[in-house]
Protein backbone atom coordinates (compact mmCIF):
# COMPACT_ATOMS: atom_id res chain seq x y z
CA UNK A 1 0.00 0.00 0.00
CA UNK A 2 2.83 2.35 0.91
CA UNK A 3 4.29 1.78 -2.51
CA UNK A 4 1.04 2.24 -4.34
CA UNK A 5 0.49 5.54 -2.61
CA UNK A 6 3.99 6.68 -3.44
CA UNK A 7 3.56 5.72 -7.07
CA UNK A 8 0.15 7.28 -7.59
CA UNK A 9 1.11 10.38 -5.72
CA UNK A 10 4.29 10.85 -7.71
CA UNK A 11 2.81 10.18 -11.11
CA UNK A 12 -0.57 11.83 -10.89
CA UNK A 13 -1.32 13.83 -7.80
CA UNK A 14 1.99 15.55 -7.23
CA UNK A 15 3.34 15.20 -10.71
CA UNK A 16 6.91 16.34 -10.62
CA UNK A 17 6.61 18.71 -13.54
CA UNK A 18 3.01 19.78 -13.52
CA UNK A 19 2.58 20.41 -9.86
CA UNK A 20 6.03 20.39 -8.27
CA UNK A 21 7.73 22.42 -10.99
CA UNK A 22 10.84 20.34 -11.19
CA UNK A 23 12.49 19.59 -14.50
CA UNK A 24 10.50 22.17 -16.39
CA UNK A 25 13.36 23.16 -18.71
CA UNK A 26 13.72 19.76 -20.34
CA UNK A 27 9.94 19.40 -20.22
CA UNK A 28 9.68 22.44 -22.43
CA UNK A 29 12.86 21.82 -24.34
CA UNK A 30 12.86 18.15 -25.27
CA UNK A 31 9.19 17.78 -26.05
CA UNK A 32 9.11 18.55 -29.74
CA UNK A 33 9.02 14.96 -30.86
CA UNK A 34 7.52 11.94 -29.17
CA UNK A 35 10.51 9.90 -30.16
CA UNK A 36 13.07 12.15 -28.49
CA UNK A 37 10.91 12.71 -25.47
CA UNK A 38 10.85 8.99 -24.93
CA UNK A 39 14.62 8.89 -25.09
CA UNK A 40 14.84 11.72 -22.63
CA UNK A 41 12.35 10.04 -20.33
CA UNK A 42 14.45 6.92 -20.41
CA UNK A 43 17.65 8.81 -19.70
CA UNK A 44 16.07 10.69 -16.82
CA UNK A 45 14.64 7.52 -15.33
CA UNK A 46 18.01 5.91 -15.42
CA UNK A 47 19.90 8.83 -13.97
CA UNK A 48 17.25 9.61 -11.42
CA UNK A 49 17.13 6.10 -10.05
CA UNK A 50 20.87 5.69 -9.81
CA UNK A 51 21.27 9.18 -8.41
CA UNK A 52 18.71 8.54 -5.72
CA UNK A 53 20.38 5.32 -4.67
CA UNK A 54 23.80 6.90 -4.56
CA UNK A 55 22.65 9.98 -2.72
CA UNK A 56 20.74 7.80 -0.29
CA UNK A 57 23.98 6.02 0.56
CA UNK A 58 25.84 9.26 0.75
CA UNK A 59 23.31 10.78 3.07
CA UNK A 60 22.79 7.87 5.39
CA UNK A 61 26.26 6.42 5.53
CA UNK A 62 28.43 9.48 5.31
CA UNK A 63 26.73 12.82 5.83
CA UNK A 64 24.49 11.90 8.74
CA UNK A 65 27.05 9.88 10.68
CA UNK A 66 29.55 12.66 10.26
CA UNK A 67 27.00 15.26 11.25
CA UNK A 68 27.49 17.30 8.13
CA UNK A 69 23.95 17.16 6.71
CA UNK A 70 24.32 20.72 5.49
CA UNK A 71 26.70 19.49 2.80
CA UNK A 72 23.84 17.71 1.06
CA UNK A 73 23.60 20.10 -1.84
CA UNK A 74 27.25 20.16 -2.69
CA UNK A 75 27.84 16.48 -2.24
CA UNK A 76 24.73 15.39 -4.10
CA UNK A 77 25.27 17.60 -7.05
CA UNK A 78 28.86 16.61 -7.43
CA UNK A 79 27.90 12.97 -7.53
CA UNK A 80 25.06 13.59 -9.93
CA UNK A 81 27.19 15.69 -12.22
CA UNK A 82 29.83 13.04 -12.42
CA UNK A 83 27.20 10.40 -12.98
CA UNK A 84 25.54 12.26 -15.79
CA UNK A 85 28.77 12.99 -17.48
CA UNK A 86 29.56 9.33 -17.33
CA UNK A 87 26.25 8.45 -18.94
CA UNK A 88 26.88 11.05 -21.56
CA UNK A 89 30.27 9.75 -22.48
CA UNK A 90 29.01 6.20 -22.62
CA UNK A 91 25.94 7.08 -24.66
CA UNK A 92 27.96 9.03 -27.18
CA UNK A 93 29.84 5.86 -27.90
CA UNK A 94 27.09 3.27 -27.57
CA UNK A 95 24.16 5.02 -29.22
CA UNK A 96 25.18 8.06 -31.22
CA UNK A 97 21.68 8.45 -32.63
CA UNK A 98 20.15 8.79 -29.18
CA UNK A 99 22.97 11.10 -28.27
CA UNK A 100 22.25 13.25 -31.30
CA UNK A 101 18.58 13.35 -30.47
CA UNK A 102 19.05 14.36 -26.87
CA UNK A 103 21.56 16.92 -27.97
CA UNK A 104 22.41 19.53 -25.45
CA UNK A 105 19.93 18.17 -22.99
CA UNK A 106 22.05 15.31 -21.81
CA UNK A 107 24.54 17.53 -20.08
CA UNK A 108 21.56 19.50 -18.95
CA UNK A 109 20.20 16.52 -17.07
CA UNK A 110 22.79 17.60 -14.57
CA UNK A 111 21.06 20.88 -14.38
CA UNK A 112 17.70 19.19 -14.41
CA UNK A 113 16.16 20.12 -11.13
CA UNK A 114 14.17 16.95 -11.21
CA UNK A 115 17.13 14.72 -10.57
CA UNK A 116 18.55 16.67 -7.67
CA UNK A 117 15.09 17.59 -6.51
CA UNK A 118 13.95 14.00 -6.25
CA UNK A 119 17.13 12.99 -4.50
CA UNK A 120 16.66 15.80 -2.00
CA UNK A 121 12.97 15.06 -1.54
CA UNK A 122 13.60 11.39 -0.92
CA UNK A 123 16.08 12.29 1.78
CA UNK A 124 13.85 15.01 3.16
CA UNK A 125 10.94 12.59 3.44
CA UNK A 126 13.24 10.20 5.25
CA UNK A 127 12.20 7.30 3.06
CA UNK A 128 13.97 3.97 3.51
CA UNK A 129 16.07 2.73 0.63
CA UNK A 130 13.49 0.65 -1.19
CA UNK A 131 10.89 3.35 -0.94
CA UNK A 132 13.41 5.91 -2.12
CA UNK A 133 14.04 3.84 -5.19
CA UNK A 134 10.34 3.43 -5.85
CA UNK A 135 9.89 7.13 -5.25
CA UNK A 136 12.60 7.94 -7.75
CA UNK A 137 11.28 5.60 -10.38
CA UNK A 138 7.72 6.78 -9.89
CA UNK A 139 8.78 10.37 -10.23
CA UNK A 140 10.77 9.56 -13.32
CA UNK A 141 7.72 7.85 -14.75
CA UNK A 142 5.66 10.87 -13.83
CA UNK A 143 8.18 13.01 -15.65
CA UNK A 144 8.25 10.75 -18.67
CA UNK A 145 4.49 10.47 -18.69
CA UNK A 146 4.01 14.22 -18.69
CA UNK A 147 6.81 14.68 -21.20
CA UNK A 148 5.58 12.13 -23.70
CA UNK A 149 1.97 13.27 -23.46
CA UNK A 150 3.08 16.81 -23.92
CA UNK A 151 5.27 15.86 -26.86
CA UNK A 152 2.28 14.13 -28.40
CA UNK A 153 0.29 17.33 -28.18
CA UNK A 154 3.11 19.40 -29.54
CA UNK A 155 3.61 17.06 -32.43
CA UNK A 156 -0.06 17.43 -33.25
CA UNK A 157 0.26 21.20 -32.95
CA UNK A 158 3.02 21.08 -35.55
CA UNK A 159 0.40 20.16 -38.07
CA UNK A 160 -1.88 23.07 -37.38
CA UNK A 161 -1.33 26.75 -37.83
CA UNK A 162 -0.78 28.30 -34.45
CA UNK A 163 -1.11 32.09 -34.55
CA UNK A 164 2.33 33.58 -35.12
CA UNK A 165 2.81 35.37 -31.81
CA UNK A 166 1.78 32.28 -29.90
CA UNK A 167 4.30 29.98 -31.52
CA UNK A 168 7.09 28.53 -29.46
CA UNK A 169 7.20 29.17 -25.75
CA UNK A 170 3.80 30.81 -25.22
CA UNK A 171 1.76 27.99 -26.68
CA UNK A 172 3.91 25.39 -24.99
CA UNK A 173 3.34 27.07 -21.64
CA UNK A 174 -0.37 27.43 -22.21
CA UNK A 175 -0.64 23.79 -23.12
CA UNK A 176 1.33 22.83 -20.05
CA UNK A 177 -0.97 25.05 -18.02
CA UNK A 178 -4.08 23.33 -19.28
CA UNK A 179 -2.43 19.98 -18.66
CA UNK A 180 -1.70 21.07 -15.10
CA UNK A 181 -5.28 22.25 -14.81
CA UNK A 182 -6.50 18.83 -15.85
CA UNK A 183 -4.14 17.12 -13.45
CA UNK A 184 -5.61 19.09 -10.57
CA UNK A 185 -8.50 16.71 -10.86
CA UNK A 186 -6.33 14.14 -9.14
CA UNK A 187 -6.14 16.36 -6.07
CA UNK A 188 -6.87 14.65 -2.85
CA UNK A 189 -6.58 11.09 -4.11
CA UNK A 190 -3.77 10.35 -1.71
Amino acid at each position, binding site marked *: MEYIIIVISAIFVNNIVLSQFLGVCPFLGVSNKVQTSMGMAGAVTFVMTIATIVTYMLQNF*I*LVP*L*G*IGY*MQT*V*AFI*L*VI*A*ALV*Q*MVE*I*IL*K*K*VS*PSLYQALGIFLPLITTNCAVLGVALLAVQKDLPLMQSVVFAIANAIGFGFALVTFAGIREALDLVDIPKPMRGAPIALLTAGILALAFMGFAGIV
Partner: protein
Amino acid sequence: MSSVVLYTVLMLSALGVISAVVLYFVAQKFKVYEDPRIDEVEAILPGANCGGCGYPGCRGFAEAFVKADDISTLFCPVGGNETMGNAAKVLGKEAAAVDPMVAVVRCAGTPEHRAKTNAYDGAKSCRVASSLYSGDTGCQFGCLGLGDCVDVCNFDAIYIDEVTGLPVVDQDKCTACGACVKACPKFIIELRKKGPKGKRIFVSCVNKDKGGVAKRSCSVACIGCGKCVKTCPHDAITLENNLAYIDFNKCKLCRKCVEVCPTTAIWEVHFPARKPKVEDETAQPVSEN
Protein backbone atom coordinates in the same frame (compact mmCIF):
# COMPACT_ATOMS: atom_id res chain seq x y z
CA MET B 1 39.00 23.81 13.66
CA SER B 2 35.96 21.81 14.61
CA SER B 3 35.34 18.27 13.55
CA VAL B 4 32.54 19.39 11.29
CA VAL B 5 34.91 21.38 9.16
CA LEU B 6 37.36 18.55 9.09
CA TYR B 7 34.78 16.00 8.02
CA THR B 8 33.44 18.38 5.46
CA VAL B 9 36.79 18.83 3.88
CA LEU B 10 37.58 15.15 3.96
CA MET B 11 34.28 14.07 2.56
CA LEU B 12 34.16 16.50 -0.30
CA SER B 13 37.76 16.07 -1.30
CA ALA B 14 37.31 12.32 -1.33
CA LEU B 15 34.21 12.68 -3.49
CA GLY B 16 36.04 15.01 -5.80
CA VAL B 17 38.90 12.65 -6.28
CA ILE B 18 36.65 9.67 -6.79
CA SER B 19 34.62 11.54 -9.39
CA ALA B 20 37.72 12.58 -11.23
CA VAL B 21 39.14 9.08 -11.25
CA VAL B 22 35.91 7.49 -12.42
CA LEU B 23 35.40 10.10 -15.08
CA TYR B 24 38.90 9.65 -16.31
CA PHE B 25 38.55 5.94 -16.81
CA VAL B 26 35.11 6.14 -18.36
CA ALA B 27 36.34 8.80 -20.72
CA GLN B 28 39.27 6.66 -21.70
CA LYS B 29 37.13 3.67 -22.34
CA PHE B 30 34.45 5.40 -24.39
CA LYS B 31 36.38 7.84 -26.43
CA VAL B 32 34.66 9.48 -29.39
CA TYR B 33 36.35 12.17 -31.35
CA GLU B 34 34.23 14.94 -32.75
CA ASP B 35 35.80 17.80 -34.51
CA PRO B 36 35.13 20.82 -32.31
CA ARG B 37 35.38 23.04 -35.36
CA ILE B 38 32.01 21.75 -36.50
CA ASP B 39 30.40 23.53 -33.59
CA GLU B 40 32.36 26.64 -34.31
CA VAL B 41 31.36 26.72 -37.93
CA GLU B 42 27.78 26.02 -37.03
CA ALA B 43 27.80 28.95 -34.67
CA ILE B 44 28.95 31.21 -37.48
CA LEU B 45 26.24 30.06 -39.89
CA PRO B 46 22.99 32.00 -39.87
CA GLY B 47 20.94 29.13 -38.44
CA ALA B 48 18.10 29.59 -40.92
CA ASN B 49 18.16 25.86 -41.69
CA CYS B 50 16.74 26.68 -45.10
CA GLY B 51 18.62 24.05 -47.03
CA GLY B 52 19.75 26.57 -49.61
CA CYS B 53 23.27 25.20 -49.40
CA GLY B 54 22.10 21.77 -50.40
CA TYR B 55 22.65 20.20 -47.01
CA PRO B 56 20.02 19.24 -44.46
CA GLY B 57 20.23 22.24 -42.19
CA CYS B 58 23.10 24.35 -40.98
CA ARG B 59 24.69 21.59 -38.94
CA GLY B 60 24.88 19.36 -41.98
CA PHE B 61 26.61 22.11 -43.89
CA ALA B 62 29.01 22.72 -41.04
CA GLU B 63 30.00 19.07 -41.00
CA ALA B 64 30.50 18.98 -44.73
CA PHE B 65 32.41 22.24 -44.61
CA VAL B 66 34.82 21.05 -41.97
CA LYS B 67 35.40 17.73 -43.68
CA ALA B 68 35.74 19.10 -47.20
CA ASP B 69 39.18 19.43 -48.73
CA ASP B 70 38.01 21.95 -51.18
CA ILE B 71 35.61 24.46 -49.74
CA SER B 72 35.14 26.46 -52.91
CA THR B 73 32.16 24.38 -53.95
CA LEU B 74 30.38 25.07 -50.70
CA PHE B 75 28.40 28.20 -50.21
CA CYS B 76 25.80 29.42 -47.78
CA PRO B 77 23.59 31.73 -49.79
CA VAL B 78 21.95 33.24 -46.76
CA GLY B 79 25.13 34.19 -44.98
CA GLY B 80 26.85 35.28 -48.14
CA ASN B 81 30.50 36.05 -48.61
CA GLU B 82 31.00 37.51 -45.17
CA THR B 83 29.83 34.39 -43.37
CA MET B 84 31.79 32.17 -45.68
CA GLY B 85 34.88 34.22 -44.97
CA ASN B 86 34.42 33.82 -41.24
CA ALA B 87 33.73 30.13 -41.54
CA ALA B 88 36.82 29.67 -43.68
CA LYS B 89 38.88 31.42 -41.03
CA VAL B 90 37.96 28.67 -38.57
CA LEU B 91 39.69 26.23 -40.87
CA GLY B 92 42.45 28.68 -41.63
CA LYS B 93 41.42 28.87 -45.27
CA GLU B 94 40.24 31.53 -47.66
CA ALA B 95 36.78 31.45 -49.12
CA ALA B 96 36.44 32.48 -52.71
CA ALA B 97 33.98 35.32 -53.09
CA VAL B 98 30.87 34.35 -54.98
CA ASP B 99 28.90 36.79 -57.05
CA PRO B 100 25.69 37.62 -55.26
CA MET B 101 22.68 36.02 -56.84
CA VAL B 102 19.00 36.80 -56.75
CA ALA B 103 15.80 35.01 -57.66
CA VAL B 104 14.35 36.17 -60.98
CA VAL B 105 10.80 35.50 -62.14
CA ARG B 106 10.73 34.63 -65.80
CA CYS B 107 7.12 35.25 -66.68
CA ALA B 108 5.51 38.53 -67.63
CA GLY B 109 2.09 37.25 -68.49
CA THR B 110 -0.18 39.66 -66.73
CA PRO B 111 -3.90 39.25 -67.34
CA GLU B 112 -3.61 42.08 -69.81
CA HIS B 113 -1.08 40.20 -71.94
CA ARG B 114 -2.32 36.70 -71.37
CA ALA B 115 -6.05 36.10 -71.36
CA LYS B 116 -7.67 33.57 -69.08
CA THR B 117 -9.18 30.58 -70.85
CA ASN B 118 -10.78 28.92 -67.87
CA ALA B 119 -11.32 29.51 -64.17
CA TYR B 120 -9.18 27.41 -61.83
CA ASP B 121 -11.15 26.35 -58.78
CA GLY B 122 -8.95 23.84 -57.00
CA ALA B 123 -6.78 24.10 -53.93
CA LYS B 124 -4.75 27.27 -53.92
CA SER B 125 -1.44 25.75 -54.79
CA CYS B 126 0.60 25.91 -57.96
CA ARG B 127 1.66 22.34 -57.52
CA VAL B 128 -1.92 21.10 -57.26
CA ALA B 129 -2.92 23.14 -60.29
CA SER B 130 0.04 22.08 -62.34
CA SER B 131 -0.46 18.43 -61.53
CA LEU B 132 -4.01 18.87 -62.77
CA TYR B 133 -3.43 20.67 -66.04
CA SER B 134 -1.44 23.27 -67.85
CA GLY B 135 -3.08 26.29 -66.34
CA ASP B 136 -5.86 28.78 -66.66
CA THR B 137 -4.44 30.70 -69.60
CA GLY B 138 -3.53 29.82 -73.14
CA CYS B 139 0.13 29.63 -72.19
CA GLN B 140 0.89 26.27 -70.73
CA PHE B 141 4.31 27.29 -69.48
CA GLY B 142 3.54 30.47 -67.61
CA CYS B 143 3.16 31.34 -63.99
CA LEU B 144 0.04 30.05 -62.27
CA GLY B 145 0.15 32.81 -59.70
CA LEU B 146 -1.00 30.66 -56.79
CA GLY B 147 2.05 31.49 -54.74
CA ASP B 148 3.84 28.27 -53.87
CA CYS B 149 7.05 30.23 -54.21
CA VAL B 150 5.77 32.77 -51.70
CA ASP B 151 4.91 30.08 -49.17
CA VAL B 152 8.36 28.57 -49.11
CA CYS B 153 10.36 31.75 -48.83
CA ASN B 154 11.74 31.96 -45.32
CA PHE B 155 12.78 35.53 -45.79
CA ASP B 156 9.55 37.23 -46.89
CA ALA B 157 11.35 38.15 -50.05
CA ILE B 158 8.66 37.28 -52.54
CA TYR B 159 5.02 38.21 -52.87
CA ILE B 160 2.29 38.07 -55.46
CA ASP B 161 1.47 41.40 -57.03
CA GLU B 162 -2.25 41.88 -56.85
CA VAL B 163 -2.59 43.57 -60.20
CA THR B 164 -0.34 41.41 -62.33
CA GLY B 165 -0.96 38.18 -60.43
CA LEU B 166 2.74 37.45 -60.76
CA PRO B 167 5.33 36.99 -58.04
CA VAL B 168 7.69 39.85 -57.32
CA VAL B 169 11.06 39.34 -55.66
CA ASP B 170 12.36 41.92 -53.24
CA GLN B 171 16.01 41.83 -54.17
CA ASP B 172 17.10 43.30 -50.86
CA LYS B 173 15.50 40.55 -48.85
CA CYS B 174 16.21 37.67 -51.20
CA THR B 175 19.13 35.57 -50.04
CA ALA B 176 19.18 33.42 -53.16
CA CYS B 177 18.51 30.34 -51.07
CA GLY B 178 16.73 28.81 -54.03
CA ALA B 179 13.76 27.49 -52.10
CA CYS B 180 11.35 29.14 -54.50
CA VAL B 181 13.20 27.76 -57.49
CA LYS B 182 12.62 24.27 -56.19
CA ALA B 183 9.04 24.97 -55.22
CA CYS B 184 7.88 26.25 -58.57
CA PRO B 185 6.36 23.43 -60.57
CA LYS B 186 6.63 25.51 -63.73
CA PHE B 187 10.36 26.18 -63.41
CA ILE B 188 9.76 29.88 -63.75
CA ILE B 189 12.13 31.16 -61.14
CA GLU B 190 15.84 31.17 -61.74
CA LEU B 191 18.78 32.30 -59.63
CA ARG B 192 20.71 34.84 -61.62
CA LYS B 193 23.57 37.15 -60.88
CA LYS B 194 22.28 40.15 -59.05
CA GLY B 195 24.44 42.34 -61.24
CA PRO B 196 26.24 45.59 -60.50
CA LYS B 197 23.80 47.82 -58.60
CA GLY B 198 21.17 45.21 -59.33
CA LYS B 199 21.41 45.77 -63.07
CA ARG B 200 20.51 42.65 -64.97
CA ILE B 201 19.04 41.56 -68.23
CA PHE B 202 17.05 38.41 -68.79
CA VAL B 203 14.37 36.82 -70.92
CA SER B 204 11.22 37.05 -68.88
CA CYS B 205 9.51 34.10 -70.48
CA VAL B 206 9.69 30.33 -70.48
CA ASN B 207 7.27 29.60 -73.32
CA LYS B 208 8.59 26.90 -75.62
CA ASP B 209 5.73 26.98 -78.10
CA LYS B 210 6.32 27.93 -81.69
CA GLY B 211 6.18 31.64 -82.31
CA GLY B 212 2.64 31.82 -83.56
CA VAL B 213 1.21 29.69 -80.79
CA ALA B 214 3.19 31.55 -78.19
CA LYS B 215 2.16 34.93 -79.49
CA ARG B 216 -1.48 33.93 -79.58
CA SER B 217 -1.50 32.87 -75.95
CA CYS B 218 0.54 35.74 -74.58
CA SER B 219 1.46 39.01 -76.20
CA VAL B 220 4.77 39.38 -74.38
CA ALA B 221 5.99 35.84 -74.93
CA CYS B 222 9.34 34.98 -76.40
CA ILE B 223 8.53 33.82 -79.92
CA GLY B 224 11.93 32.45 -80.66
CA CYS B 225 12.56 34.80 -83.56
CA GLY B 226 16.28 34.89 -82.84
CA LYS B 227 16.78 38.63 -83.36
CA CYS B 228 18.42 38.97 -79.99
CA VAL B 229 20.80 36.12 -80.72
CA LYS B 230 21.95 37.88 -83.84
CA THR B 231 22.23 41.22 -82.12
CA CYS B 232 24.18 40.17 -79.08
CA PRO B 233 27.83 41.15 -79.55
CA HIS B 234 28.98 38.89 -76.72
CA ASP B 235 27.40 35.59 -77.77
CA ALA B 236 25.51 35.50 -74.52
CA ILE B 237 22.17 34.44 -75.97
CA THR B 238 21.17 30.98 -77.10
CA LEU B 239 17.93 29.80 -78.64
CA GLU B 240 16.51 26.40 -77.86
CA ASN B 241 12.96 25.06 -78.25
CA ASN B 242 11.77 28.43 -79.51
CA LEU B 243 13.02 30.13 -76.37
CA ALA B 244 15.92 32.52 -75.94
CA TYR B 245 18.14 32.30 -72.88
CA ILE B 246 20.74 34.81 -71.76
CA ASP B 247 23.83 33.44 -70.04
CA PHE B 248 24.43 35.83 -67.18
CA ASN B 249 28.11 35.02 -67.11
CA LYS B 250 28.55 36.22 -70.64
CA CYS B 251 26.09 39.09 -70.67
CA LYS B 252 27.84 42.45 -70.49
CA LEU B 253 24.67 44.42 -69.90
CA CYS B 254 24.87 46.31 -73.20
CA ARG B 255 21.10 46.27 -73.59
CA LYS B 256 21.18 45.83 -77.35
CA CYS B 257 18.97 42.75 -77.26
CA VAL B 258 16.34 44.57 -75.31
CA GLU B 259 15.85 47.01 -78.10
CA VAL B 260 15.37 44.44 -80.82
CA CYS B 261 12.96 42.10 -79.08
CA PRO B 262 9.64 42.48 -80.93
CA THR B 263 7.57 41.30 -77.94
CA THR B 264 9.45 43.07 -75.10
CA ALA B 265 10.20 39.65 -73.64
CA ILE B 266 13.71 40.73 -72.68
CA TRP B 267 13.81 42.71 -69.48
CA GLU B 268 16.34 45.13 -68.13
CA VAL B 269 16.03 46.10 -64.53
CA HIS B 270 17.65 48.80 -62.47
CA PHE B 271 18.96 50.64 -65.47
CA PRO B 272 18.37 54.35 -65.73
CA ALA B 273 15.30 55.06 -67.83
CA ARG B 274 15.91 55.43 -71.54
CA LYS B 275 14.94 58.70 -72.94
CA PRO B 276 12.70 57.96 -75.92
CA LYS B 277 11.11 54.66 -74.93
CA VAL B 278 8.94 55.04 -71.90
CA GLU B 279 6.38 52.30 -72.32
CA ASP B 280 9.03 49.70 -71.50
CA GLU B 281 8.92 50.72 -67.91
CA THR B 282 5.24 50.06 -67.57
CA ALA B 283 5.77 46.61 -68.99
CA GLN B 284 8.30 45.85 -66.32
CA PRO B 285 6.63 45.90 -62.95
CA VAL B 286 9.43 43.92 -61.34
CA SER B 287 11.53 47.02 -60.83
CA GLU B 288 10.69 46.97 -57.20
CA ASN B 289 13.40 49.24 -55.74
